[in-house]
């Protein structure tokens, strides 16, 4: 799992790649909570290169999502791969969060 970030206009884009599983999700969660702590609030998570997500990944996303909401921020996801999209769909995360087909669409509609 690799996670990186950059600012684009008012948005804070997080790119996560590889696997969000029980061994890597704590690191993803920690990075996101640090960015929230630094004052970032309009998050878009780009999952174009994320191959795999388990319940541990969902757990971290929910913790981060709740924190962003409590701070008055927003969180959207883009470019889910088929495996990740399937996990998002059956867990209800696909309807709980805003999910966009591409980063361009997310930037226009978030």
């Amino acid at each position, binding site marked *: 799992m690799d996670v990186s970030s950059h600012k684009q206009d008012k948005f804070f884009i997080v790119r996560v790649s590889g696997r969000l599983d029980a061994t890597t999700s704590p690191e993803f969660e920690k990075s996101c909570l640090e960015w929230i702590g630094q004052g970032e609030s309009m998050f878009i998570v780009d999952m174009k290169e994320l191959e795999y997500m*388990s319940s*541990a990944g969902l*757990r971290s996303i929910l913790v981060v999502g*709740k924190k962003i909401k409590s701070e008055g921020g927003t969180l959207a996801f883009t470019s889910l791969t088929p495996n990740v999209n399937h996990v998002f769909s059956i867990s*209800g995360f696909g309807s709980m969060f805003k999910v966009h087909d591409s980063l361009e669409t997310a930037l226009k509609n978030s």
Partner: protein
Amino acid sequence: MVTLRLPAVMESFGAFRSFVIEEMEREGDLRELIPGVDLVLEELLVNVIHYAYPKGEGEIEVECGACGSGKFRVTVKDWGNPFNPLEQADPDVTADIDSREVGGVGIFLARQMASRLNHAYRDGGNVITAWFEK
């Protein structure tokens, strides 16, 4: 069927995963089942690592192999107290972010991904068997 037994710690997770995926790749025609098996294996292993041995150390045994054309079977065994995780209630997947509880999704995901899941307590251990079918 092939078998691997290792300590019930997160450090064993990668070795169990490689062991099962390599067995599937060796079978050749089971590739399309790999994403589902990958997820179910993680959820079952994490469940054992977190909950099976509250008082100390223990082991996990994973057995897997093809079981007929286009079919694959994985069993995960622990020697903790009798416990059937498949009996736990499903999470409310329609809840909004404020009322959604953190956790409780792992076994639910496993149940959706496997063709069938079964728990038995036998020979002094919990045995969860997952079947996958193309």
